[in-house]
């Protein structure tokens, strides 16, 4: 198995000689005039931010072990950020993949969210998530719109609310 892993890893390096991307830092110099439109987070920025906001930790590198009927058949290192950036960059506008990643993270063992029925004050919960994820309170229009959806749609609960905010242009901006 290690031989196979090595073979695959080496094989992947062959075309890299002439297809390697040079590093490009998309970070802008800011917006001194206050007129520039926002730039999107790079995949790396997004992964690190989402992990911090949703899991409370940075992406790490760990050993993934696969066992079949109790027997380990393979284990290998997984660099979470590198792996996820490579995945997200496989889509020109990676927002759909980012949204799926967030949906997965919010179902993970690492995240505990209250049930919708356990949220006594939806407006306070909405305000809290805006503040936590966007660094600001919702304006009156946003608060009303979110609260109305919370009341009307059974599919709108804590997880949906967080997914919506993280999927927004504001969150996705640098």
């Amino acid at each position, binding site marked *: *198995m290690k031989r196979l*892993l090595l073979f*695959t890893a080496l094989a*992947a390096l*062959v*075309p*890299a000689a*002439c*297809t390697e*991307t*040079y590093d*490009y830092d*998309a970070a802008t110099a800011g917006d001194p005039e206050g007129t520039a*439109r*926002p*730039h*999107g987070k790079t995949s790396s920025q997004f992964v690190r931010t989402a992990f911090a906001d949703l899991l409370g930790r940075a992406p790490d590198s760990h050993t*993934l*072990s*696969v*066992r*079949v*009927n*109790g027997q380990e058949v*393979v284990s*290998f290192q997984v*660099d979470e950020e*590198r*792996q996820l950036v*490579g*995945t997200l*960059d*496989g*889509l*020109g*506008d*990676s*927002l*759909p*993949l980012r949204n*799926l990643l967030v*949906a*997965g993270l919010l*179902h*993970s063992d*690492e995240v505990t969210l209250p049930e919708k029925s356990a949220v006594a004050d939806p407006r306070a919960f909405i305000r809290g998530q805006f503040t936590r994820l966007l660094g600001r309170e919702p*304006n009156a*229009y*946003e608060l009303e719109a*979110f609260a109305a*959806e919370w009341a009307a*749609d059974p*599919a709108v609960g804590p997880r*949906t*609310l967080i997914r*919506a905010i993280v999927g*927004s*242009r*504001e969150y996705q*901006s640098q």
Partner: protein
Amino acid sequence: MATLSRRNFLRGGLAGLGALAAARVAAPLVKVKSASAAGPGKHVVVVGIGGGLRLRESLGMGEGATMPNLFGRSPLVTGFATGVQGGPNLAPEYPARRLVLPPVRATPLHTEGTLVTNLRYADGPPGHLQGHGCLLSGFYNQLENRADAHLPVPTIFELHRQATNAPATDAWYVSQVGGFYRALIASDAPGYGADFAGVYLQPPGAMQPLMPIIASGKRTIDLTPQNPGLPTIRANAAEDAAAQRLTSVLDGNSPRFAREDTTVHLSAADNAAVQQHLASIYSDASYDSFFPDAFGIGIADGNGGVDGTADAQTIFHAERVLAKFKPAVMAVTLLDVDVCHGDFNGYLQAQQLADACVAHLWDFIQSDPELRSSTTMIVLPEHGRHLFFNGNNPDSLQRSGIDHGQGDDGDRNVWMLALGPDVKKNQVIAPANVAQPGRSTNRYETIDAVMTAMSVLGHDGRMRTELEAEGARPGLVMGEVFA
């Protein structure tokens, strides 16, 4: 349930590692007519066999019949081999991978269409990004290998979307290669750009089994008969729709992304459609939706399954996109043959895989009633390779790696195969009297293949205008291709 998944998972894991690791035209002497194929409801698929594929090994069969599904077993150009050819001439000591390939077609595909055997990649560096930049725009270019380097003329995606007001999901670029190939989805051309970009998808990167595993937070995956499933990202259409609705509330109150942003930003509707497609893949606990054994092209995994090469994964997902979105424009980039830099025998095998992949794609198109009657497919190498070996990893047959990029005839002499309901059948041609100011060879060129493809959609006039505005020599429509 599909087969577990141990096999599929391992394949996924391995693939994951891999992912870590894309008004000067005068009347020509040849009669160049407007395409008779143009019309509404048409589809065009341009397949670029990237990585550098020489005429000698492909049509010339100088190392055996490496592409029998496309070209059969008898050389289609002279000077390299004669008579009926067997399989690829691999060195006896070569530790050949066990390829999984479907049975070779009884009749080669070229008999179903028109093959131009003397196409010329006439200008610009024979490099991957530049070659594919040309295939996506009809413009010989010297793009820098940078993630933010855009073509100065509109791409085929932008031309189509601007002309038809179509959504991005009507124009796809499915590329085996990632990195700076993303930038090819939109140009810097005035009046075009990211607002008219298509959807860029790199299957070996985006279709990644490790993503749901990482998202699950699990560090150990225990697979048992009672628990045979692998981590997934659950599909929940109601939650997705609700989240998108709420996001639109926020987006309605925030400025759009900067036009000059490095990556494109598609509309909410386009992204919702793409997300729905991806969700169906990421929610499949068998992981077969990433790449199923049933695709039948790749490398034997030793357990009865098939590991998809990057080209095979790319074609598999191109077919999924065609099935779901039926886009008017799709470009596909393959690259497995680029292994030739250091592995000549691997290059021969990669040709077999590319050959099977292209044939599979065409058969898939033929299996769909709508696509069958409306799709033109153009297949061509992005460029060739040098006429000389580079000395890397020589084999016992005195062959070694071959590079590309210096621009000799090996680099520039290629071919084009056109297939489709409007394409003349069973035609092999090598026109040598094509005239145009600035055209040095009197042959058809790569830019003509692109212009011909665009003529099917009725965008050739617009492409010509935009190229001329940039001071470039536009391609010609190959009238002989159409019935």
